[in-house]
């Protein structure tokens, strides 16, 4: 992972495909795999925010996947 272009409320990060898959699957675990009590308190965001991020990462991964011919 490379982090650059740090700004006040955002950061641009470059991830490899494997790193992005790892983040995707970790988010999938906490969103859909296991019950996380006090989700927002422990993770710092709501389940809706986590699910939205999971969907967005999934879309990016689909773009990286080879297209079916």
């Amino acid at each position, binding site marked *: 992972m490379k982090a650059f272009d740090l700004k006040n409320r955002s950061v641009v990060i470059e991830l490899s495909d494997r790193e992005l898959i790892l983040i*995707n699957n970790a988010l*999938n675990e906490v*969103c859909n795999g296991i019950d996380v009590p006090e989700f927002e308190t422990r993770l710092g965001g709501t389940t809706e925010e986590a699910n939205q991020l999971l969907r967005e990462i999934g879309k990016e991964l689909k773009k990286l996947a080879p297209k079916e011919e």
Partner: protein
Amino acid sequence: MSPRLWLLAILALAGALAPSRADAHGVETCAQGFFATATTERPQSESQVAGTHQGSVVCGYESASGYSQAAEEGGTLQSQVLQQQMSGSGSNADIADAIANGHAFDKHVIGEGMNGDIGQSEFADHIQAVLDNPTMSQSLSAGTSAFYDEASGTVVIVNPAAADYGTAFVPKNPLQYFQGLK
């Protein structure tokens, strides 16, 4: 026309006459990298259809695990994937036994009460049934494969690199979990 142009014309004609990939029994052949996935869905009986799923063969081969196989509809893909992952040395029953005798039984059956009060052999039978006839299956990154059974909500993840060959459990949101796996 020069001999070189004649050669090019012959090659172009041969390419046009070659059988297309679609003719080959719907077999998909995709040269893929890390994101290779193969997703299949078996036909649902009426009692099993609780939601609408779009069944399709998405793509072909998992280079990360070193295998290359045709993605086919129906129940053949998962057994072929597994057999190739085990280098031809095992069956779905062997994999189910390995998983049922691993950590999954204590953690998910005993610990979480998955599928009620069942023993290890019943757990193995259930895993094998999911592997033999999953509602959906897909190849994941790093050479693992996932199998989903809609009726029970069970997800089986086969990981040849793990000592107990993977896991089987019922996630909080089974379908969303399965679809979110990469």
